[in-house]
């Protein structure tokens, strides 16, 4: 039973989550905030373990240890660039857990045990929340694992589509809803239908998650992960309704809001609607852009070398570095920071311009650069720095493409209307990338052929290493 003391403990843990999330509003307090939230979780778990009449506490502790161990290993080992994948995996586990809890509640009702938990008798209202919990939780689970596969490259990043796919998706959705309805009805009237219907509901929801995410291109996965994050929160909240548990309702809803806000922010920054993202087919097709990898007729590409770039930048007054997804792929953040430091020693002002959707996750560049010890106060958001390019000698574009593509200013293409960094206003633009292939949107980039652009072909890590050693040589 939930005694008032337990309820107070849950309220305290919800309050800790709230205070913790509040501290996420500033990098200076964010770490403490995360720790407070973890403390909230501890309070909730301990209160449940010791204040509820848990029948098998050792078993529970074993479960906590196993899960905690696996989680800790995963968290320790992950590369910073693989963050999106890991979040997707955790997310899938969260959704799965919520669905399983609801299923366990049903199993109890179904009478495989003599001891009924409070509320184990399924009223129609509870049955409805069970359906919500299972449906959302299972969709989150399978969807997250597909997203993981695409992000990590284990599944093809291409949007997968087959004839009749949309029909199939609608069919599966219809089926899941139908079995959900049967489940709710059976809870009151036909108990023998309960278990089969909820099993079919679960399977349907799992299939639905796959069908929903598979058609979306790999590059849109971060949006999908944020949305699934929101779902996993909602699944927890739904489970909270099932159990009448305030901690789950409050925290789940907070997470739901967080995921939703991130989704919206990402869509806005890409200037696409959520529907457009989810109905998919956008991006991912890395090979398809091969055609553009040669300079088109009549347009020439200016090339440069690491050595020339080193000299160019070392005589500049101000250099703005524009990092992009390629930086993350190449893991070039450390040599890049070294370049910045060497330039600053020579009296060059170095700033980083962070586009809101640079990379593949919101804030992705910030995490990478923070890992490389780049100080915050040289990072600038788009609106802050866009006016400065005109007074800048060199814009160093490192593995970024869409976020500097002037095509966004013209109508009629996939990135039309997306705000971009005005690197083309700088005196010289140096673009480090491996080829002339377009970025994730697949839109060709006129900047490659601009008079003031110099391409520095090659892997970003190699190029930046070479520039750094040249700068060191210059300095000596």
């Amino acid at each position: 039973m939930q005694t008032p003391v337990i309820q107070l403990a849950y309220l305290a843990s919800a309050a800790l989550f709230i205070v913790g999330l509040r501290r996420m509003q500033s990098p200076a307090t964010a770490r403490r905030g995360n720790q407070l939230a973890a403390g909230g979780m501890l309070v909730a778990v301990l209160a449940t373990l010791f204040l509820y009449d848990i029948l098998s506490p050792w078993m529970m502790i074993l479960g906590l240890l196993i899960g905690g161990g696996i989680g800790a290993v995963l968290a320790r080992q992950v590369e910073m660039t693989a963050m999106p994948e890991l979040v997707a995996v955790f997310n899938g586990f969260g959704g799965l857990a919520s669905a399983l809890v609801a299923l366990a509640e049903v199993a109890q009702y179904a009478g495989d045990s003599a001891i009924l938990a409070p509320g184990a008798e399924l009223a129609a209202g509870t049955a409805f929340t069970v359906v919500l919990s299972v449906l959302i939780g299972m969709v989150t689970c399978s969807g997250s694992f597909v997203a993981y596969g695409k992000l990590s490259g284990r599944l093809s990043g291409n949007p997968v589509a087959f004839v009749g796919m949309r029909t199939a998706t609608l069919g599966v959705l219809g089926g899941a809803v139908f079995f959900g309805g049967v489940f709710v009805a059976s809870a009151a009237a036909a108990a023998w239908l309960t278990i089969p219907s909820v099993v079919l509901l679960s399977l349907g929801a799992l299939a639905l998650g796959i069908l929903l995410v598979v058609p979306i291109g790999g590059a849109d996965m971060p949006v999908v992960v944020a949305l699934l994050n929101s779902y996993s929160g909602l699944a927890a909240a739904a489970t909270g309704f099932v159990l009448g548990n305030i901690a789950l309702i409050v925290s789940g809803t907070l997470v739901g809001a967080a995921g939703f806000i991130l989704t919206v922010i990402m869509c806005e920054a890409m200037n696409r609607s959520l529907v457009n993202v989810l109905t998919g087919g956008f991006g991912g097709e890395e090979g398809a852009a091969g055609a553009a990898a040669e300079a088109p007729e009549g347009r020439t590409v200016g090339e440069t070398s690491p050595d020339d770039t080193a000299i160019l930048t070392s005589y500049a007054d101000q250099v703005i570095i524009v990092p992009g997804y390629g930086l993350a792929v190449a893991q070039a953040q450390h040599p890049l920071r070294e370049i910045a430091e060497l330039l600053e020693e020579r009296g060059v002002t170095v700033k980083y311009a962070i586009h809101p959707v640079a990379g593949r996750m919101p804030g992705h560049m910030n995490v990478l650069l923070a890992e490389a010890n780049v100080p915050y106060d040289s990072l600038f958001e788009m609106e802050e720095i866009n006016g400065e390019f005109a007074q800048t000698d060199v814009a160093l574009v490192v593995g970024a493409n869409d976020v500097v593509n002037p095509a966004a200013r013209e109508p009629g293409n996939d990135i039309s209307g997306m705000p971009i960094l005005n690197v083309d206003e700088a005196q010289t633009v140096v673009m480090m990338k491996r080829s002339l292939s377009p970025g994730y949107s697949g839109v060709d980039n006129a900047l490659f052929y601009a008079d003031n652009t110099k391409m520095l072909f090659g892997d970003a890590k190699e190029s930046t290493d070479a520039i750094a050693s040249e700068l060191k040589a210059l300095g000596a």
Partner: protein
Amino acid sequence: MQNFIVFVLSAFLGNEILSKVPQTLHTPLMSGANAISGITVVGALVAAGMSGGGWSSWLGFFALVVATINVVGGFLVTDRMLQMFAKKQRPSGGEAEPQGVKAGAK
């Protein structure tokens, strides 16, 4: 009904708090929030711990393990990320401007 009211208030509160998180911190926010969604571990404890055995017990136990992965892994990885943010102060201006959040301040 009361639960629904709590839900609505939490949604408002979440919207209020989270829309103020600066872009710099969106990745840690995502993984931190994700860890919080592992609160379902509490549900798993109740489900697994309150039943005498059988299916519901096993389902609950499995839920417990899986939810704990989410919780522990999520908080740890977020902490790892934020640790990198925390130590980052330009040695020169670090003391004078304790927040030092340029790119973060909207």
